[in-house]
């Protein structure tokens, strides 16, 4: 799927991935790919600016961790992030139901 089609949905998907368990950037991208069965093969670079922005907006928090002797930034969902994710889920449910109603 083209990256353009994902615009507007990337934030919600990142929040959903991090809601499952704290994750670093590479793991977030891998999980997005896995959950979408490879459909969301987006340019990997786009995820990192989104992670930083979501943190600046207070929806994610991050800390350094160490793995195999490497520094790794691990992101977790904040309380505000959880609320934002719930709202995005509701909006998506309403939207997809409406589109389904028209297309079906």
């Amino acid at each position, binding site marked *: 799927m083209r990256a353009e089609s994902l615009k507007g949905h990337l934030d919600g998907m990142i929040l959903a991935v991090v809601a499952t368990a704290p994750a670093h950037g*590479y793991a977030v991208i891998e999980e997005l790919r896995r959950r979408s069965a490879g459909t969301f093969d987006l340019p990997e670079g786009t995820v990192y*600016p989104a992670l*930083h*922005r979501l943190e600046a907006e207070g929806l994610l928090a991050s800390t350094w961790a160490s793995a195999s002797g490497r520094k790794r930034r691990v992101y977790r969902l904040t309380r505000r992030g959880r609320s934002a994710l719930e709202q995005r889920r509701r909006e998506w449910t309403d939207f997809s139901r409406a589109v389904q109603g028209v297309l079906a």
Partner: protein
Amino acid sequence: MSWLDSLDAELGRARIPGPRRRRIVSELRDHLACDPTAEERLGEPASLARQFADELGTALARTAAVASFLALVPLGVLFAALFTLGAVYTTNVEPGATILLVGGVQLAFVGGTLALVRAWRLRGAVVVSAAEGRVLRRRAGLGLAGGALTLAVIAVLASGRDGGVQLSHPALAWTTVGVGAASVLAGTLVLARTTRLGPVAKGPAADLSFDLGLDADPQRLAYAIAGAVALCIALAGIAQGDPIDGLVRAAGDGLLCLAGFVLLGRPLGLRR
């Protein structure tokens, strides 16, 4: 030059501050260690650096705009209490101080409100243009500058240095100065974070019609707002039993609104 070195250089070119730049490079180094073939999928360093600047700059500018409004709220509440108690705008206060006080309060109110409105209207935007980022910062800066001016005048009045006339409620006046100064300083610190890092995307800033959510010519909207302000002041004058004074002040404030639109309209994103 390696992909990471190139990214580091491009992040510097996009004016990403040092600590943030080092963090981004560190994260991407870890990414490439997980998958050494990922360079191409990560994209061009220049494009990635611009995306960081755009997304972070947008979020910071919006936060600064909201923070400036929130920083002015305590000052507004305490100033309203002083005003209600008749501690300011008395005949004992020097006319020059009164003009500065009125100017400071109006700049704080207009700048803070405009900053909040534009931030709210752009709340869903992942990236705004560099011009829009500047508008957000200018509005926030104007509001905070107005707040600082108001505080300075109240401090001078409360200390009795404007000719020996003290305000009637010095304790409340000094509380206003103390709380207001801490609050305005906090807002200024948030705004200061945006001076280096801002969005770099091209494109124009919106105007007054976007702020109000109306599909109308901004100049006509400015006339309508100036007219509404003048009408309210004229009606207040009639209600206070002094219609002539009300009409004079109405004309003055209406013209001031239009002058503000003409002089500050472009930098504040009210007109194009």
